[in-house]
């Protein structure tokens, strides 16, 4: 234990009662690594599961990108992974193409960027940064992870059933997803998809409730709401969004299960298929779309806000400057969260929804750009006149800001109902959301992994390899998703297996080849990350207790990651977390546990 954390004993606060720090624990392999109730271990479990799922999701994207760039050409690579049934002679079948697109989206959106991102960093940082011994309920936390694990296994298993996995797009719009005779993937594959998602939602709810309770109840002495790091604010609001919106997705999925299995007609009406007029009448696919997007849009922010929180923390620490406009940042996040519940209709301008509703949703959607703009300007003001320590984490955090700007701006076009008429469901949409919430959130996650790796494992990741990973990733992201906007503006629809037969898309073949090349390069970059990650766990250089000169509480805990987080008393907080380069101090950071000097103001 370093001298630094001994210092806290002097503060002598003794509330929060008993001291867990020195318990003798009889831990077996199973309680320590498998059914662990320790937030740090659960965070690692989430992270590693998410990495595995991300590899699967990314691999799928390469398989369908090969088809898009070189339609009809055989690849041994595709045949190796998909076999003769789904890739005869190495050429992807149209069925499997849609299946891959669907599962790629599902895995990345839910399993990597929702479960993986919140699960990893909320679990790691909420107790650490609030000065708590653990989550409010270790048991629920453990159950949350294991439900996540089970749902991941079911989702992967669904890829191996006859007929293939769900293939109706990650939004699984009925009737396509409800009727096996419409597409083979809507048979057992779709059933497993729904089961997996139901379990996933339960996992997400348990996690979110735990995060909320912990933030409200387990803050250490002196940790007022406005002394919480922005990471915690973002995790808290994300959890609230999840609790309010995921149950709606569950009801949405449940009604779809009923329609599929029990002959109800919530989403079905007037369908004539395979020569038979179906019995189900009276339902509407629009109901499904409303329910789905009522989750679907907050979901975008469930993905994005944790990434923004991590980015805020990494940028402030590595700029050696307080985050600019701390309170404005909190208010912006609250505003974004509130607005995210009343904009879902912008996914439905062209679905036959009443055009008047289109007016309302355009209005609310464009409003969301205001708090987003504030956040961007505040980030810029934070790095202005800073002393930017460009660690790999900082590189990714700045990259996240760049992607948030680039992807957010095209939202102004898609959110405008009149403009959506022409680009709805085209590659413009694909480019937009991959930049802003796909890559943007992944960048936030990478920033988090590089920055808190010492907190996870007591080691550093290799920095050079981190830089290489960063450059390959950001080049790949812009190389893949910028050109897609041009395809979209030319009218190329998304989810097309091939555009070969269309005269009007002539001359654009090269764009698809370029995109695929960048995608392959970016995935090689991710393999470098994976190597770096696992290599550093075992062989990385050991880190000191507070390697980044950070103010927040997680760096006052011993490197060893003991049960209960702190030996002896938990730390007491005397100031906000962003006193970097504060005038009157010799060092460029002032720990949250350091009391204010006489006459010093808290300064935000």
């Amino acid at each position, binding site marked *: 234990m370093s001298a630094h954390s001994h210092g806290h004993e002097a503060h002598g606060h003794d509330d929060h009662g008993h001291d867990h720090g020195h318990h003798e624990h009889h831990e077996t392999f199973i309680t320590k690594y498998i059914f662990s109730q320790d937030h740090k271990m659960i965070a690692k479990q989430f992270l590693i599961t998410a990495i595995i799922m991300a590899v699967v999701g990314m691999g799928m994207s390469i398989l369908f990108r090969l088809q898009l760039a070189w339609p009809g050409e055989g690849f041994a690579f595709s045949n190796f992974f998909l076999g003769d049934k789904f890739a005869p002679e190495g050429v992807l079948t149209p069925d499997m193409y849609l299946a891959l697109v669907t599962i790629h989206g599902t895995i990345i959106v839910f399993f990597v960027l929702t479960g993986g991102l919140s699960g990893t960093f909320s679990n790691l940082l909420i107790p650490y940064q609030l000065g708590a011994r653990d989550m409010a309920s270790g048991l629920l936390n453990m159950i949350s992870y294991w439900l996540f694990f089970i749902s991941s296994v079911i989702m992967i298993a669904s890829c191996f059933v006859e007929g293939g996995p769900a293939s109706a797009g990650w939004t699984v719009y009925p009737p396509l997803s409800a009727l096996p005779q419409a*597409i083979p993937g809507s048979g057992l594959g779709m059933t497993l998809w729904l089961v997996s998602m139901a379990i996933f939602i339960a996992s997400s709810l348990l996690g979110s409730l735990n995060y909320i309770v912990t933030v409200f109840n387990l803050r250490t002495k002196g940790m007022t709401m406005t002394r919480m790091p922005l990471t915690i604010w973002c995790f808290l609001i994300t959890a609230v969004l999840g609790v309010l919106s995921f149950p709606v997705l569950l009801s949405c999925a449940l009604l779809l299960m009923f329609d599929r299995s029990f002959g109800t007609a919530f989403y079905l009406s007037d369908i004539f298929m395979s020569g038979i007029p179906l019995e189900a009448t009276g339902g509407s696919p629009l109901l499904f779309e409303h329910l789905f997007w009522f989750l679907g849009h907050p979901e975008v922010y469930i993905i994005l806000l944790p990434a923004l929180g991590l980015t805020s923390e990494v940028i402030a620490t590595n700029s050696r400057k307080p985050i600019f406009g701390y309170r404005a940042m909190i208010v912006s996040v609250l505003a974004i969260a509130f607005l995210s519940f009343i904009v879902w209709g912008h996914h439905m301008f062209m679905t036959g929804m009443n055009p008047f509703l289109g007016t309302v949703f355009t209005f609310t959607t464009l409003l969301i750009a205001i708090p987003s703009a504030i956040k961007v300007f505040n980030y810029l003001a934070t790095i202005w006149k800073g002393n930017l320590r460009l660690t790999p984490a900082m590189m990714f955090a700045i990259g996240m800001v760049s992607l948030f700007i680039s992807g957010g701006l095209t939202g102004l076009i898609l959110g405008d109902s009149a403009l959506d*008429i022409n680009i709805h469901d085209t590659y413009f949409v694909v480019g937009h959301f991959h930049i802003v919430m796909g890559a943007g959130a992944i960048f936030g996650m990478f920033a988090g992994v590089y920055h808190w790796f010492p907190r996870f494992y007591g080691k550093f990741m290799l920095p050079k390899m981190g830089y290489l990973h960063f450059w390959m990733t950001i080049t790949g992201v812009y190389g893949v998703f910028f050109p897609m906007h041009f395809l979209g503006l030319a009218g190329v629809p998304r989810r097309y297996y091939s555009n070969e037969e269309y005269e009007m898309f002539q001359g654009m073949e090269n764009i698809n080849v370029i995109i695929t090349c960048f995608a392959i390069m970016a995935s090689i970059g991710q393999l470098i990350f994976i190597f770096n990650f696992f290599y550093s766990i075992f062989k990385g250089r050991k880190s000191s207790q507070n390697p980044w000169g950070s103010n927040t509480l997680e760096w006052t805990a011993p490197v060893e990651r003991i049960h209960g987080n702190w030996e002896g008393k938990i730390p007491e907080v005397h100031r906000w977390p962003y006193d970097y380069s504060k005038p009157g101090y010799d060092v460029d950071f002032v720990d949250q546990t350091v009391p204010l000097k006489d006459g010093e103001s808290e300064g935000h």
Partner: protein
Amino acid sequence: MVLITVLIVIVAVAKVMRSHELSAKMANDEEYVSLSEIKTQGFLYALFGVLLFGTLLAQMVGWGEFILPVSAAEHGDKIDDLFWVTMYLILFVFFVTHTFLFAFIFKYYEKKDQKALWFPHNNKLEMAWTVIPAIVLLSLVFYGLATWDDVINPKDDKNNLEVELVGEQFKWTAHYSGKDNQLGKVNFSAITSSNSLGIVTEATLDSALVGTIASIAQLEGQVKVLDSLVEKAEWSGKLEELAEAESQLSAWKANERRLKKLIAEKANYSVAEDDIIIRDTLFLCKGRNHHFSFRSKDVLHGAYFPHFRAQMNCVPGITTEFTFKPRYTAEEMKIEAAKEGKTFYSYELVCNKICGASHYKMRFPIVVLEQKDFDAKMKAAKTFGEEIAGN
């Protein structure tokens, strides 16, 4: 491609080995990344900024011809104006904020004696960058909404041509209103092999009922046979067949009930003998407003007319609509496109909502005709009345 991959892997491995050596050499108290490394990365970021701007501009020049084909519908100009206003605003903000971002990285990367400025907040600045975006966005909202209103609620036009477009896996069918410019009513219960759209007239309902009753009789027979087999315990594979037959039977019985109800309410009959159904091409009449009704027979489809700035989903169970006025024939369009340095090939309607394995092939050629050619085309086509009589 393979070469690039191999090259990258080699570089990566080299980097791994080097950084491994470096990290092994590093003492525990040494900085994680050195100042010279940070300087390199700061320069690289600035270089990346230049490349990013450069490649974006190059893409806009090189691929600019693909952005928005010339609008072949009148309302398209309004949409394109709004698009370009928004696009220039976006590009402006993109370049300005990114310039700041890259410039700040380049200027303020960590140096030995550099001190960060204590600057936690500034009310004036924050107010400025709240109010200015708010004003800009609100203007954009109102401009956008005015355009939306113009496009989606066009003024009533007595001269509107009523056209119905029906999507099904994986083809389109155009249903014209014929002489009376009134579309015949439709109902999926009335669909038969000779009435693929389910147009409701006295004759079609009667024949649909006959067909339905025949299907019921045939399925009842099938169920009986299967039942007896199952009772004799010869049920390997028969249970699924039985369940399938029973569910089909119940679907046809429901259809019988619906048809009988439709027949009882005679008001549902419509005059549709003059309607015209065309299955291979969507003919449009230049200079006339087309009021499209969209329907789907099975799953969701998306009727997307990229050249006409029009799109609407086809939803089973409801009718959706969109109105637009074509203004150029293909020949004229070629000339208009050439004026802007673009190439025009042909008009096409594409499906833009995932609908199954052959989604990507669900297309419909569009031909825009002058009024007189259009009239001639309609005159020459078989009417629905003739079609069912011929059967």
